[in-house]
């Protein structure tokens, strides 16, 4: 079985589903001949042709609107935005129409679309190429927000997103696009949405994270294991709607929880998780919940970004606080 990177797994999922479902149309800027700025759409144009693999004019607001219209009119658009920081012009279409059309028309029209974008810092890119603002979308009723953290989950979750009848914001950790290879069978099997994945079973502390910081979170779990501490590691994967029961059950077992995310502290989804634990799991806690997050600052340019992104040292310090 071929081992592949996360971005190659995205490509494999797109290939699989375009073959299986003739209503899928992939579109975005430079996604045709160029194969996308990260090469996620390489080979699609050659295989499926220009009707279904559409390079668009350079207008993100327009891409959002096209996706909404195409979805309502019987197609399943999968729109690529080159970076999460360039999705904002399309917020009007995503929030005001994609998320609301089913409710507005009491189910007569709906928007089965997928919006894909790389997110997160650590790739030494210019300003606006390093955003982790998933909370903006997770706040919106009617949307799903999904973030994979491995090639296999990228494949399975993207298939699920493309098969979902509602709009899905699918954010891909740019820092992990080519980080590690994994065997990803091209079996067309989707993974469940709206479910956390328990990556490690443990009894001493629950580590909750998603996306690119799963890498550091798992490294910390390894270090803890070497020191005789069994961490339970949860990849949240679907940020909207949140699978709180899985997290609460884990914390009920371990009594300790550290939430790790790249997005800024205030208004981050870690706050929702922490609040849910306080509301529903307080009596099982042995220590206050800790959050390790990006700072409440603008993501710095390349030279300082390593100071912004939570690293193993910061995560370990938080674990030590809850274990103390």
């Amino acid at each position, binding site marked *: 079985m071929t081992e592949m990177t996360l971005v190659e797994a995205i490509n494999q999922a797109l290939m699989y589903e375009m073959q299986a479902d003739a209503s899928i149309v992939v579109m975005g800027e430079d996604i045709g001949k160029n194969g996308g700025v990260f090469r996620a759409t390489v080979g699609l144009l050659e295989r499926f042709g220009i009707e279904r693999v559409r390079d668009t004019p350079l207008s993100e607001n*327009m891409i959002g*609107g096209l996706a909404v*219209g195409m979805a309502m009119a019987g197609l399943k658009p999968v729109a690529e935005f080159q970076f999460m920081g360039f999705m904002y012009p399309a917020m009007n279409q995503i929030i005001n*129409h994609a998320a609301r059309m089913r*409710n507005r028309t009491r189910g007569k029209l*709906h928007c089965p679309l997928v919006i894909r974008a790389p997110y997160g810092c650590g790739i030494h890119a210019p300003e606006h190429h390093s955003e982790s603002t998933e909370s903006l979308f997770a706040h919106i009723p009617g949307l799903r927000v999904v973030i994979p953290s491995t090639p296999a989950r990228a494949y399975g979750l993207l298939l699920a997103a493309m098969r979902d009848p509602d709009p899905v914001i699918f954010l891909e950790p740019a820092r992990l696009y080519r980080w590690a290879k994994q065997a990803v069978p091209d079996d067309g099997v989707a993974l469940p949405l709206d479910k956390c994945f328990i990556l490690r079973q443990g009894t001493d502390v629950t580590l909750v994270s998603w996306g690119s910081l799963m890498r550091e979170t798992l490294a910390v779990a390894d270090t803890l294991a070497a020191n005789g501490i069994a961490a339970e590691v949860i990849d949240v994967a679907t940020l909207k709607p949140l699978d709180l029961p899985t997290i609460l059950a884990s914390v009920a077992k371990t009594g300790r929880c550290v939430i790790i995310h790249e997005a800024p502290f205030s208004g981050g989804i870690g706050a929702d998780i922490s609040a849910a634990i306080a509301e529903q799991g307080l009596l099982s806690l042995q220590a206050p919940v800790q959050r390790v997050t990006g700072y409440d600052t603008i993501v710095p340019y390349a030279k300082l970004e390593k100071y912004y992104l939570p690293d193993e040292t910061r995560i370990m310090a938080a674990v030590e606080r809850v274990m103390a």
Partner: protein
Amino acid sequence: MKIVANYEIPFYQYLDEQSIPAADAPALMQDTNHLIRLYQQMVISRTLDNKAVALQRTGKLGTYPSTRGQEAVFVGMGDALTDADIFIPYYRDTATLMQHGVPAADILLFWGGDERGNLFADADKNYPYSVPIGSQLLYAAGVATANKIRKTNKAVLVTCGDGATSQGDFYEAMNVAGIWQLPLVFVVNNNQWAISIPRTAQSAAQTLAQKGIAAGIACEQVDGNDVIAVQARVAVALQKARDNQTATVLEMLCYRQADHTTADDAGRYETAGVREKEWQKEPVGRLQNYLEKQGVLMPETISVINAAAVTVVEEAVTEYLAATPDQPTAMFDHLYAKLPAAYAAQYAELKMINSFARNG
């Protein structure tokens, strides 16, 4: 230096302010039965509009945007649309929707604050209202793209007001319609006002139609008080969309003979006397004068048409006022195809509160 491109914007008017037909008028000008149907539809539109404003003033309807003085634009479009065409409205298009199959009671239900007023929505015929200004132009381009890909040969008609032409959406939608040769007709209802901002403060462009030049699509101005010109030019544009898969932008010139909505007071910004002066051009009287001069519209016929319009409107009002409110849980029922498990607690809470409220 040399001139590399030249452009012209045609203006179409077939029945002028004195109800005199133009020499180049289309066959419609002589089709009495068709013209009487257009007249009837404009009368129904104005009757419903007067009633809707009265309902709002008496607390029986929510904020409502009047269509007064703009009947020719909406009725002309509605008449030109065929059942096979797709209509994507902004929010003032009452008459067009009615002619394209939407019950008047649904229209009142929507403005009365009930999502079920959008139940007419149908991917093959009418899309729901769009409130964020200009945003419908972009998804209309998406609908046209999907229909082109699916080879349905359907034409898409989308509308906006003059204010919406200041949004990037207007240009972005025309731009992609030009490049992708979309079967899409844009109609700008230039009623001279975007709430309090006059047309002259919206753009320095001589016409709004000319904005289509930048996108490489056909563009023209039409007298929006002349229902014959509106009907004829929209019909031509729709036919071009169906046959040639090309886009057109039509700027309809008319005048908003009302406040922006019932929540607005144009007295704060509209110069006194302008509305009355513009009324000399209004569309219903213009067509009526023509038909009377032709000897095909008698006073007794006008009475019958007026009475029939009142009946249509009263029936719709009765149906609207009799509608019982939707279940409160409806706000959850159509949020997703299947309500995610994460919503279970909120749903249960609303259901419980609702049952307490009903049981007193």
